[in-house]
Protein backbone atom coordinates (compact mmCIF):
# COMPACT_ATOMS: atom_id res chain seq x y z
CA UNK A 1 0.00 0.00 0.00
CA UNK A 2 2.33 2.75 -1.23
CA UNK A 3 0.24 5.83 -0.32
CA UNK A 4 0.45 4.91 3.38
CA UNK A 5 4.22 5.08 3.66
CA UNK A 6 4.61 8.75 4.68
CA UNK A 7 2.29 8.42 7.70
CA UNK A 8 4.33 5.61 9.18
CA UNK A 9 7.51 7.53 8.62
CA UNK A 10 5.92 10.18 10.80
CA UNK A 11 5.17 7.59 13.47
CA UNK A 12 8.78 6.38 13.33
CA UNK A 13 10.03 9.90 13.85
CA UNK A 14 7.56 10.53 16.64
CA UNK A 15 8.60 7.39 18.53
CA UNK A 16 12.30 8.03 18.10
CA UNK A 17 11.91 11.60 19.36
CA UNK A 18 9.83 10.43 22.32
CA UNK A 19 12.33 7.73 23.30
CA UNK A 20 15.31 10.06 22.95
CA UNK A 21 13.52 12.74 24.96
CA UNK A 22 12.73 10.27 27.75
CA UNK A 23 16.29 8.94 27.87
CA UNK A 24 17.87 12.38 27.85
CA UNK A 25 15.43 13.60 30.53
CA UNK A 26 16.38 10.68 32.77
CA UNK A 27 20.08 11.21 32.13
CA UNK A 28 19.66 14.92 32.83
CA UNK A 29 17.95 14.16 36.14
CA UNK A 30 20.69 11.69 37.09
CA UNK A 31 23.46 14.11 36.26
CA UNK A 32 22.16 17.46 37.44
CA UNK A 33 19.43 16.71 39.92
CA UNK A 34 20.49 13.51 41.59
CA UNK A 35 24.27 14.10 41.19
CA UNK A 36 25.03 10.43 40.92
CA UNK A 37 28.64 9.62 40.07
CA UNK A 38 28.82 6.37 38.22
CA UNK A 39 31.58 3.93 38.94
CA UNK A 40 31.37 0.91 36.67
CA UNK A 41 34.99 -0.14 37.25
CA UNK A 42 34.10 -1.79 40.54
CA UNK A 43 31.52 -4.16 39.03
CA UNK A 44 33.91 -6.78 37.49
CA UNK A 45 35.58 -7.22 40.88
CA UNK A 46 32.19 -8.14 42.37
CA UNK A 47 32.08 -11.17 40.08
CA UNK A 48 35.53 -12.55 40.86
CA UNK A 49 38.51 -11.14 42.62
CA UNK A 50 42.17 -12.03 42.77
CA UNK A 51 43.38 -13.27 46.09
CA UNK A 52 47.03 -12.28 46.54
CA UNK A 53 47.54 -14.65 49.50
CA UNK A 54 46.78 -17.89 47.69
CA UNK A 55 47.45 -16.54 44.21
CA UNK A 56 44.20 -17.60 42.57
CA UNK A 57 40.87 -16.12 41.56
CA UNK A 58 37.89 -16.55 43.84
CA UNK A 59 34.26 -15.84 43.08
CA UNK A 60 32.90 -12.72 44.68
CA UNK A 61 29.29 -12.06 45.71
CA UNK A 62 27.71 -11.59 42.28
CA UNK A 63 29.51 -14.62 40.84
CA UNK A 64 28.48 -16.78 43.81
CA UNK A 65 24.91 -15.54 43.57
CA UNK A 66 24.72 -16.25 39.86
CA UNK A 67 26.07 -19.75 40.36
CA UNK A 68 23.53 -20.34 43.13
CA UNK A 69 20.69 -19.21 40.88
CA UNK A 70 21.86 -21.66 38.23
CA UNK A 71 21.98 -24.46 40.83
CA UNK A 72 18.51 -23.56 42.07
CA UNK A 73 17.23 -23.57 38.49
CA UNK A 74 18.66 -27.00 37.67
CA UNK A 75 17.66 -28.81 40.88
CA UNK A 76 14.40 -26.90 41.19
CA UNK A 77 13.55 -27.73 37.59
CA UNK A 78 14.18 -31.44 38.16
CA UNK A 79 12.22 -31.55 41.41
CA UNK A 80 9.35 -29.50 39.98
CA UNK A 81 9.19 -31.77 36.93
CA UNK A 82 8.94 -34.85 39.16
CA UNK A 83 6.33 -33.52 41.60
CA UNK A 84 4.49 -31.64 38.87
CA UNK A 85 4.40 -34.77 36.72
CA UNK A 86 2.95 -36.81 39.56
CA UNK A 87 0.38 -34.10 40.31
CA UNK A 88 -0.56 -33.78 36.64
CA UNK A 89 -1.18 -37.52 36.36
CA UNK A 90 -3.27 -37.37 39.57
CA UNK A 91 -5.24 -34.53 38.05
CA UNK A 92 -6.49 -36.73 35.17
CA UNK A 93 -6.64 -39.96 37.20
CA UNK A 94 -9.71 -42.17 37.40
CA UNK A 95 -9.93 -41.99 41.14
CA UNK A 96 -11.89 -39.06 42.50
CA UNK A 97 -9.69 -39.10 45.60
CA UNK A 98 -6.53 -38.30 43.63
CA UNK A 99 -8.31 -35.68 41.55
CA UNK A 100 -9.71 -33.91 44.62
CA UNK A 101 -6.35 -33.96 46.34
CA UNK A 102 -4.39 -32.55 43.37
CA UNK A 103 -7.12 -30.04 42.54
CA UNK A 104 -7.06 -28.65 46.09
CA UNK A 105 -3.30 -28.31 46.10
CA UNK A 106 -3.14 -26.66 42.67
CA UNK A 107 -6.08 -24.36 43.40
CA UNK A 108 -4.57 -23.21 46.67
CA UNK A 109 -1.19 -22.46 45.15
CA UNK A 110 -2.47 -20.78 42.02
CA UNK A 111 -4.75 -18.46 43.96
CA UNK A 112 -2.41 -17.27 46.69
CA UNK A 113 0.57 -14.98 46.08
CA UNK A 114 3.84 -16.93 45.64
CA UNK A 115 5.37 -14.76 48.33
CA UNK A 116 2.78 -15.75 50.94
CA UNK A 117 3.07 -19.42 49.97
CA UNK A 118 6.85 -19.31 50.22
CA UNK A 119 6.76 -17.70 53.67
CA UNK A 120 4.27 -20.27 55.02
CA UNK A 121 6.07 -23.26 53.58
CA UNK A 122 9.48 -22.02 54.56
CA UNK A 123 8.48 -21.99 58.21
CA UNK A 124 7.17 -25.53 57.94
CA UNK A 125 10.02 -26.95 55.93
CA UNK A 126 12.83 -25.33 57.86
CA UNK A 127 11.31 -26.08 61.27
CA UNK A 128 9.77 -29.53 60.62
CA UNK A 129 11.25 -31.26 57.59
CA UNK A 130 14.87 -30.20 57.93
CA UNK A 131 15.38 -31.52 61.48
CA UNK A 132 13.75 -34.75 60.26
CA UNK A 133 16.25 -35.13 57.41
CA UNK A 134 19.11 -34.39 59.79
CA UNK A 135 21.49 -33.13 57.11
CA UNK A 136 24.12 -31.76 59.47
CA UNK A 137 25.05 -35.12 60.94
CA UNK A 138 24.93 -36.63 57.48
CA UNK A 139 27.48 -34.09 56.25
CA UNK A 140 29.65 -34.63 59.30
CA UNK A 141 29.97 -38.33 58.39
CA UNK A 142 30.81 -37.73 54.71
CA UNK A 143 34.33 -38.14 53.33
CA UNK A 144 36.34 -35.28 51.77
CA UNK A 145 35.65 -36.43 48.18
CA UNK A 146 31.90 -36.50 48.74
CA UNK A 147 32.08 -33.12 50.42
CA UNK A 148 33.81 -31.61 47.40
CA UNK A 149 31.20 -33.10 45.06
CA UNK A 150 28.38 -31.88 47.25
CA UNK A 151 29.85 -28.38 47.36
CA UNK A 152 30.04 -28.34 43.58
CA UNK A 153 26.44 -29.51 43.26
CA UNK A 154 24.73 -27.58 46.06
CA UNK A 155 27.01 -24.72 47.01
CA UNK A 156 28.57 -24.04 50.44
CA UNK A 157 27.72 -26.95 52.73
CA UNK A 158 27.13 -24.91 55.87
CA UNK A 159 24.19 -23.39 53.94
CA UNK A 160 22.91 -26.74 52.65
CA UNK A 161 19.81 -27.05 54.92
CA UNK A 162 18.95 -23.48 54.05
CA UNK A 163 19.45 -24.14 50.34
CA UNK A 164 17.33 -27.29 50.46
CA UNK A 165 14.46 -25.49 52.23
CA UNK A 166 14.47 -22.81 49.54
CA UNK A 167 14.74 -25.40 46.81
CA UNK A 168 11.77 -27.41 48.12
CA UNK A 169 9.66 -24.25 48.48
CA UNK A 170 10.43 -23.24 44.92
CA UNK A 171 9.80 -26.70 43.49
CA UNK A 172 6.53 -27.24 45.38
CA UNK A 173 5.22 -23.92 44.23
CA UNK A 174 6.36 -24.36 40.64
CA UNK A 175 5.01 -27.93 40.47
CA UNK A 176 1.42 -26.61 40.53
CA UNK A 177 2.07 -24.81 37.26
CA UNK A 178 3.96 -27.77 35.77
CA UNK A 179 1.06 -30.07 36.60
CA UNK A 180 -1.34 -27.89 34.62
CA UNK A 181 0.94 -28.20 31.58
CA UNK A 182 1.11 -31.98 32.03
CA UNK A 183 -2.68 -32.19 32.35
CA UNK A 184 -3.23 -30.10 29.23
CA UNK A 185 -0.75 -32.28 27.34
CA UNK A 186 -2.45 -35.50 28.40
CA UNK A 187 -5.90 -34.15 27.61
CA UNK A 188 -4.70 -33.04 24.17
CA UNK A 189 -4.08 -36.69 23.19
CA UNK A 190 -7.21 -37.87 21.33
CA UNK A 191 -9.58 -40.14 23.25
CA UNK A 192 -9.25 -42.73 20.46
CA UNK A 193 -5.67 -43.42 21.58
CA UNK A 194 -6.91 -44.49 25.02
CA UNK A 195 -9.61 -46.61 23.52
CA UNK A 196 -7.24 -48.26 21.07
CA UNK A 197 -4.80 -49.02 23.89
CA UNK A 198 -7.57 -50.51 26.02
CA UNK A 199 -8.80 -52.52 23.02
CA UNK A 200 -5.33 -54.04 22.72
CA UNK A 201 -5.76 -55.31 26.28
CA UNK A 202 -3.55 -52.82 28.11
CA UNK A 203 -4.62 -51.74 31.56
CA UNK A 204 -4.92 -48.03 32.23
CA UNK A 205 -1.41 -47.71 33.70
CA UNK A 206 0.12 -49.28 30.60
CA UNK A 207 -2.04 -47.18 28.29
CA UNK A 208 -0.85 -44.08 30.11
CA UNK A 209 2.85 -44.91 30.17
CA UNK A 210 3.19 -46.62 26.78
CA UNK A 211 0.69 -44.82 24.55
CA UNK A 212 -0.55 -41.53 25.94
CA UNK A 213 2.43 -40.03 27.78
CA UNK A 214 4.92 -40.38 24.89
CA UNK A 215 2.55 -38.50 22.62
CA UNK A 216 1.66 -35.95 25.28
CA UNK A 217 5.35 -35.26 25.98
CA UNK A 218 5.87 -33.83 22.51
CA UNK A 219 3.10 -31.32 23.18
CA UNK A 220 4.39 -30.44 26.64
CA UNK A 221 7.95 -29.56 25.72
CA UNK A 222 7.44 -25.93 24.56
CA UNK A 223 5.30 -24.83 27.54
CA UNK A 224 7.62 -26.70 29.94
CA UNK A 225 10.58 -24.80 28.52
CA UNK A 226 8.70 -21.56 29.18
CA UNK A 227 7.92 -22.71 32.71
CA UNK A 228 11.60 -23.44 33.30
CA UNK A 229 12.38 -19.82 32.48
CA UNK A 230 9.58 -18.76 34.85
CA UNK A 231 11.21 -20.91 37.51
CA UNK A 232 14.49 -19.05 37.08
CA UNK A 233 12.65 -15.76 37.45
CA UNK A 234 10.64 -16.97 40.43
CA UNK A 235 13.82 -18.18 42.11
CA UNK A 236 14.48 -14.51 42.89
CA UNK A 237 11.62 -14.73 45.41
CA UNK A 238 13.66 -17.20 47.42
CA UNK A 239 15.99 -14.30 48.26
CA UNK A 240 13.31 -13.09 50.69
CA UNK A 241 13.84 -16.17 52.87
CA UNK A 242 17.59 -15.53 52.85
CA UNK A 243 18.73 -18.08 50.28
CA UNK A 244 21.94 -16.63 48.91
CA UNK A 245 21.11 -16.46 45.22
CA UNK A 246 21.62 -13.61 42.77
CA UNK A 247 18.92 -11.24 44.04
CA UNK A 248 19.99 -11.78 47.65
CA UNK A 249 23.66 -11.11 46.94
CA UNK A 250 22.56 -8.12 44.85
CA UNK A 251 20.68 -6.69 47.83
CA UNK A 252 23.65 -7.33 50.10
CA UNK A 253 26.09 -5.73 47.68
CA UNK A 254 23.91 -2.70 46.95
CA UNK A 255 23.71 -1.99 50.67
CA UNK A 256 27.34 -2.70 51.54
CA UNK A 257 28.99 -1.02 48.55
CA UNK A 258 26.53 1.83 48.08
CA UNK A 259 26.74 1.40 44.28
CA UNK A 260 22.97 0.97 44.08
CA UNK A 261 22.40 1.87 40.42
CA UNK A 262 25.28 -0.17 39.02
CA UNK A 263 24.59 -3.26 41.11
CA UNK A 264 20.87 -3.45 40.34
CA UNK A 265 21.40 -2.79 36.65
CA UNK A 266 24.01 -5.56 36.58
CA UNK A 267 21.69 -7.99 38.36
CA UNK A 268 18.93 -7.16 35.90
CA UNK A 269 21.25 -7.70 32.94
CA UNK A 270 22.44 -11.04 34.37
CA UNK A 271 18.90 -12.36 34.70
CA UNK A 272 18.09 -11.05 31.24
CA UNK A 273 21.10 -12.75 29.66
CA UNK A 274 20.28 -16.04 31.38
CA UNK A 275 16.55 -16.07 30.58
CA UNK A 276 16.73 -14.52 27.13
CA UNK A 277 19.59 -16.83 26.13
CA UNK A 278 17.64 -19.87 27.29
CA UNK A 279 14.50 -18.66 25.51
CA UNK A 280 16.41 -18.31 22.24
CA UNK A 281 18.07 -21.70 22.73
CA UNK A 282 14.73 -23.43 23.44
CA UNK A 283 13.17 -21.69 20.46
CA UNK A 284 15.93 -22.96 18.19
CA UNK A 285 15.69 -26.51 19.55
CA UNK A 286 11.95 -26.46 19.10
CA UNK A 287 12.23 -25.38 15.48
CA UNK A 288 14.77 -28.10 14.84
CA UNK A 289 12.55 -30.73 16.47
CA UNK A 290 9.48 -29.64 14.53
CA UNK A 291 11.40 -30.13 11.31
CA UNK A 292 11.57 -33.87 12.00
CA UNK A 293 7.91 -34.29 12.78
Amino acid at each position, binding site marked *: MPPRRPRFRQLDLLILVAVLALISYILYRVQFHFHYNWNWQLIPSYFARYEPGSGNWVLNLLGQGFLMTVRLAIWGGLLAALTGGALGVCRVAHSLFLRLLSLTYIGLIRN*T*PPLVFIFIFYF*FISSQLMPLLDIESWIADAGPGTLKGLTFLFGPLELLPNFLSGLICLALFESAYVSEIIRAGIEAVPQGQWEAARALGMHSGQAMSKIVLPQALAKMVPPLAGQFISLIKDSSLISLISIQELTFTGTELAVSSGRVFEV*WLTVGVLYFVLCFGL*ARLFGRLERRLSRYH
Partner: protein
Amino acid sequence: MNQTITSRLRQRRRHWRWAFDTLAFLIVLLGLGWIIVEGAGTLHYNWQWYRIPQYLYHIEDGVFYSGPLLRGLGVTLELTGWSLLLTLIFGLTAALLQRSSSWAAHAITRVYVEIVRNTPLLVQIYLVYFILAPILDLDRFVAAILALAIFEGAFAAEIFRAGIEAIPKGQWEAARSLGLPSHAIHRLVILPQAIRLVLPPLTGLAVSLIKHSALVSVIAVADLTTEGRNLIADTFMTFELWFTVAALYLVLTTSLSLLISRLERRLPMHSAGH
Protein backbone atom coordinates in the same frame (compact mmCIF):
# COMPACT_ATOMS: atom_id res chain seq x y z
CA MET B 1 -33.81 -56.86 32.07
CA ASN B 2 -30.47 -58.39 32.92
CA GLN B 3 -28.70 -55.38 31.43
CA THR B 4 -30.61 -52.85 33.50
CA ILE B 5 -29.72 -54.72 36.66
CA THR B 6 -26.00 -54.74 35.87
CA SER B 7 -26.01 -51.09 34.86
CA ARG B 8 -27.85 -50.20 38.04
CA LEU B 9 -25.35 -52.23 40.01
CA ARG B 10 -22.51 -50.51 38.27
CA GLN B 11 -24.00 -47.12 38.97
CA ARG B 12 -24.48 -47.97 42.60
CA ARG B 13 -20.88 -49.13 42.81
CA ARG B 14 -19.76 -45.85 41.27
CA HIS B 15 -21.74 -43.89 43.81
CA TRP B 16 -20.12 -45.86 46.61
CA ARG B 17 -16.72 -45.25 45.11
CA TRP B 18 -17.34 -41.48 44.93
CA ALA B 19 -18.51 -41.44 48.51
CA PHE B 20 -15.50 -43.46 49.55
CA ASP B 21 -13.07 -41.18 47.65
CA THR B 22 -14.61 -38.03 49.08
CA LEU B 23 -14.40 -39.50 52.56
CA ALA B 24 -10.76 -40.48 52.02
CA PHE B 25 -10.06 -36.95 50.79
CA LEU B 26 -11.63 -35.43 53.90
CA ILE B 27 -9.67 -37.81 56.10
CA VAL B 28 -6.43 -36.77 54.41
CA LEU B 29 -7.31 -33.09 54.92
CA LEU B 30 -8.02 -33.75 58.59
CA GLY B 31 -4.76 -35.68 58.83
CA LEU B 32 -2.84 -32.75 57.36
CA GLY B 33 -4.54 -30.40 59.79
CA TRP B 34 -3.59 -32.73 62.64
CA ILE B 35 0.04 -32.81 61.42
CA ILE B 36 0.14 -29.01 61.40
CA VAL B 37 -1.31 -28.74 64.89
CA GLU B 38 0.84 -31.58 66.22
CA GLY B 39 3.96 -30.24 64.50
CA ALA B 40 3.33 -26.85 66.04
CA GLY B 41 2.81 -28.62 69.36
CA THR B 42 6.29 -30.15 69.26
CA LEU B 43 7.63 -26.62 68.71
CA HIS B 44 5.57 -25.50 71.73
CA TYR B 45 3.69 -23.24 69.39
CA ASN B 46 0.94 -21.44 71.16
CA TRP B 47 -2.12 -21.10 68.91
CA GLN B 48 -3.91 -17.84 69.53
CA TRP B 49 -6.64 -17.72 66.93
CA TYR B 50 -8.83 -15.69 69.27
CA ARG B 51 -6.50 -12.72 68.79
CA ILE B 52 -6.93 -12.62 65.00
CA PRO B 53 -10.37 -10.91 64.70
CA GLN B 54 -9.14 -7.74 66.40
CA TYR B 55 -6.57 -7.32 63.62
CA LEU B 56 -9.35 -7.57 61.03
CA TYR B 57 -11.86 -5.21 62.62
CA HIS B 58 -13.17 -4.02 65.92
CA ILE B 59 -16.47 -2.47 66.91
CA GLU B 60 -16.53 0.31 69.46
CA ASP B 61 -19.82 1.85 70.54
CA GLY B 62 -21.52 0.26 67.57
CA VAL B 63 -19.08 1.88 65.12
CA PHE B 64 -17.07 -0.35 62.80
CA TYR B 65 -13.33 0.22 62.68
CA SER B 66 -11.15 -1.74 60.27
CA GLY B 67 -8.00 -3.27 61.69
CA PRO B 68 -4.56 -3.38 60.04
CA LEU B 69 -5.34 -6.46 57.94
CA LEU B 70 -8.49 -4.99 56.39
CA ARG B 71 -6.70 -1.69 55.83
CA GLY B 72 -3.93 -3.64 54.09
CA LEU B 73 -6.53 -5.38 51.98
CA GLY B 74 -7.86 -1.95 51.00
CA VAL B 75 -4.37 -0.81 49.99
CA THR B 76 -3.91 -4.01 47.96
CA LEU B 77 -7.19 -3.32 46.15
CA GLU B 78 -6.27 0.31 45.53
CA LEU B 79 -2.84 -0.69 44.25
CA THR B 80 -4.32 -3.37 42.00
CA GLY B 81 -6.97 -1.03 40.64
CA TRP B 82 -4.54 1.71 39.65
CA SER B 83 -1.99 -0.65 38.18
CA LEU B 84 -4.70 -2.54 36.28
CA LEU B 85 -5.74 0.74 34.65
CA LEU B 86 -2.16 1.57 33.75
CA THR B 87 -1.56 -2.04 32.61
CA LEU B 88 -4.44 -1.78 30.16
CA ILE B 89 -3.07 1.49 28.78
CA PHE B 90 0.46 0.07 28.43
CA GLY B 91 -0.79 -3.19 26.97
CA LEU B 92 -3.12 -1.62 24.43
CA THR B 93 -0.51 0.91 23.35
CA ALA B 94 2.11 -1.79 22.93
CA ALA B 95 -0.30 -4.03 21.00
CA LEU B 96 -1.32 -1.25 18.63
CA LEU B 97 2.31 -0.19 18.12
CA GLN B 98 3.19 -3.80 17.39
CA ARG B 99 0.51 -3.92 14.71
CA SER B 100 1.62 -0.75 12.96
CA SER B 101 4.12 -1.05 10.13
CA SER B 102 6.59 1.38 11.68
CA TRP B 103 9.96 -0.24 12.40
CA ALA B 104 10.64 2.05 15.38
CA ALA B 105 7.33 0.99 16.94
CA HIS B 106 8.21 -2.66 16.41
CA ALA B 107 11.66 -2.21 17.89
CA ILE B 108 10.46 -0.38 20.98
CA THR B 109 7.67 -2.85 21.79
CA ARG B 110 10.00 -5.79 21.16
CA VAL B 111 12.60 -4.40 23.55
CA TYR B 112 9.92 -3.66 26.17
CA VAL B 113 8.33 -7.10 26.00
CA GLU B 114 11.64 -9.00 25.97
CA ILE B 115 13.07 -7.08 28.91
CA VAL B 116 9.96 -7.55 31.01
CA ARG B 117 9.50 -11.22 30.19
CA ASN B 118 13.12 -12.17 30.82
CA THR B 119 13.77 -10.55 34.19
CA PRO B 120 12.15 -11.37 37.54
CA LEU B 121 9.39 -9.06 38.76
CA LEU B 122 11.22 -8.68 42.07
CA VAL B 123 14.30 -7.31 40.28
CA GLN B 124 12.07 -5.01 38.23
CA ILE B 125 10.52 -3.67 41.42
CA TYR B 126 13.99 -3.04 42.84
CA LEU B 127 15.07 -1.36 39.59
CA VAL B 128 12.05 0.95 39.62
CA TYR B 129 12.24 1.64 43.34
CA PHE B 130 15.98 2.10 43.72
CA ILE B 131 16.79 3.72 40.36
CA LEU B 132 13.78 5.23 38.63
CA ALA B 133 11.95 6.47 41.74
CA PRO B 134 14.80 8.58 43.18
CA ILE B 135 15.65 9.96 39.73
CA LEU B 136 12.09 11.02 38.98
CA ASP B 137 11.11 11.81 42.59
CA LEU B 138 8.35 9.22 42.74
CA ASP B 139 6.83 8.16 46.03
CA ARG B 140 6.89 4.44 46.90
CA PHE B 141 3.22 3.87 46.19
CA VAL B 142 3.56 5.33 42.69
CA ALA B 143 6.75 3.32 42.16
CA ALA B 144 4.87 0.15 43.12
CA ILE B 145 2.00 0.92 40.74
CA LEU B 146 4.45 1.70 37.95
CA ALA B 147 6.52 -1.45 38.49
CA LEU B 148 3.45 -3.70 38.52
CA ALA B 149 1.96 -2.00 35.46
CA ILE B 150 5.17 -2.22 33.46
CA PHE B 151 5.37 -5.93 34.27
CA GLU B 152 1.75 -6.87 33.54
CA GLY B 153 1.58 -4.49 30.56
CA ALA B 154 3.87 -6.75 28.55
CA PHE B 155 1.52 -9.68 29.13
CA ALA B 156 -1.54 -7.53 28.42
CA ALA B 157 0.04 -6.51 25.10
CA GLU B 158 0.18 -10.16 24.09
CA ILE B 159 -3.47 -10.68 25.08
CA PHE B 160 -4.64 -7.63 23.12
CA ARG B 161 -2.58 -8.62 20.10
CA ALA B 162 -4.09 -12.11 20.06
CA GLY B 163 -7.57 -10.66 20.55
CA ILE B 164 -7.20 -8.23 17.65
CA GLU B 165 -5.74 -10.87 15.38
CA ALA B 166 -8.60 -13.25 16.15
CA ILE B 167 -11.11 -10.89 14.51
CA PRO B 168 -12.04 -12.39 11.12
CA LYS B 169 -10.40 -10.82 8.12
CA GLY B 170 -13.78 -10.02 6.59
CA GLN B 171 -14.35 -7.39 9.28
CA TRP B 172 -11.23 -5.50 8.21
CA GLU B 173 -12.11 -5.77 4.56
CA ALA B 174 -15.67 -4.65 5.13
CA ALA B 175 -14.58 -1.67 7.21
CA ARG B 176 -11.96 -0.70 4.66
CA SER B 177 -14.39 -1.01 1.78
CA LEU B 178 -16.68 1.39 3.64
CA GLY B 179 -13.84 3.86 3.41
CA LEU B 180 -13.02 4.06 7.13
CA PRO B 181 -9.53 5.29 8.02
CA SER B 182 -7.27 2.96 10.00
CA HIS B 183 -7.85 4.51 13.43
CA ALA B 184 -11.62 4.45 12.92
CA ILE B 185 -11.47 0.78 11.91
CA HIS B 186 -9.68 0.01 15.15
CA ARG B 187 -11.91 2.16 17.33
CA LEU B 188 -15.32 1.40 15.83
CA VAL B 189 -15.04 -2.09 14.38
CA ILE B 190 -12.17 -4.14 15.76
CA LEU B 191 -11.76 -3.17 19.42
CA PRO B 192 -15.46 -3.51 20.37
CA GLN B 193 -15.37 -7.08 19.07
CA ALA B 194 -11.95 -7.85 20.48
CA ILE B 195 -13.07 -6.83 24.00
CA ARG B 196 -15.23 -9.94 24.27
CA LEU B 197 -12.32 -12.14 23.29
CA VAL B 198 -9.80 -10.56 25.62
CA LEU B 199 -12.04 -10.40 28.69
CA PRO B 200 -11.34 -13.97 29.97
CA PRO B 201 -7.54 -13.75 29.65
CA LEU B 202 -7.61 -10.25 31.13
CA THR B 203 -9.37 -11.69 34.18
CA GLY B 204 -6.49 -14.08 34.59
CA LEU B 205 -4.21 -11.07 34.34
CA ALA B 206 -6.13 -9.22 37.06
CA VAL B 207 -5.90 -12.26 39.34
CA SER B 208 -2.17 -12.50 38.75
CA LEU B 209 -1.89 -8.77 39.39
CA ILE B 210 -3.48 -9.23 42.80
CA LYS B 211 -1.04 -12.05 43.54
CA HIS B 212 1.98 -10.13 42.27
CA SER B 213 0.97 -7.05 44.24
CA ALA B 214 2.09 -8.97 47.35
CA LEU B 215 5.65 -8.44 46.14
CA VAL B 216 5.52 -4.69 46.71
CA SER B 217 5.79 -5.48 50.41
CA VAL B 218 9.56 -5.59 49.76
CA ILE B 219 9.50 -1.83 49.27
CA ALA B 220 7.33 -1.35 52.35
CA VAL B 221 4.10 -0.29 50.67
CA ALA B 222 1.50 -0.92 53.38
CA ASP B 223 -0.43 -3.63 51.53
CA LEU B 224 -1.94 -6.81 52.99
CA THR B 225 1.35 -8.74 52.97
CA THR B 226 3.26 -5.88 54.60
CA GLU B 227 0.63 -5.54 57.33
CA GLY B 228 0.80 -9.28 57.89
CA ARG B 229 4.59 -9.23 58.14
CA ASN B 230 4.51 -6.26 60.52
CA LEU B 231 1.95 -7.95 62.77
CA ILE B 232 4.02 -11.15 62.79
CA ALA B 233 7.06 -9.17 63.84
CA ASP B 234 5.00 -7.68 66.70
CA THR B 235 3.03 -10.70 67.88
CA PHE B 236 4.95 -13.82 66.71
CA MET B 237 1.66 -15.40 65.62
CA THR B 238 3.34 -16.59 62.42
CA PHE B 239 0.97 -19.33 61.36
CA GLU B 240 -2.34 -17.69 62.31
CA LEU B 241 -1.46 -14.48 60.52
CA TRP B 242 -0.05 -16.08 57.38
CA PHE B 243 -3.07 -18.36 57.10
CA THR B 244 -5.39 -15.39 57.51
CA VAL B 245 -3.49 -13.37 54.91
CA ALA B 246 -3.51 -16.30 52.48
CA ALA B 247 -7.25 -16.79 53.05
CA LEU B 248 -7.93 -13.11 52.35
CA TYR B 249 -6.01 -13.31 49.07
CA LEU B 250 -7.81 -16.53 48.21
CA VAL B 251 -11.20 -14.90 48.80
CA LEU B 252 -10.18 -11.93 46.65
CA THR B 253 -8.86 -13.92 43.69
CA THR B 254 -11.54 -16.62 43.62
CA SER B 255 -14.39 -14.12 43.96
CA LEU B 256 -12.93 -12.10 41.09
CA SER B 257 -12.73 -15.22 38.90
CA LEU B 258 -16.32 -16.17 39.78
CA LEU B 259 -17.61 -12.65 39.13
CA ILE B 260 -16.04 -12.46 35.70
CA SER B 261 -17.10 -15.96 34.67
CA ARG B 262 -20.68 -14.96 35.48
CA LEU B 263 -20.24 -11.73 33.52
CA GLU B 264 -18.83 -13.65 30.58
CA ARG B 265 -21.87 -15.87 30.36
CA ARG B 266 -24.04 -12.79 29.92
CA LEU B 267 -21.98 -11.41 27.06
CA PRO B 268 -22.93 -12.88 23.68
CA MET B 269 -19.76 -14.59 22.54
CA HIS B 270 -20.39 -15.53 18.93
CA SER B 271 -21.49 -12.29 17.39
CA ALA B 272 -18.20 -11.58 15.65
CA GLY B 273 -19.28 -12.93 12.30
CA HIS B 274 -18.47 -16.59 12.85
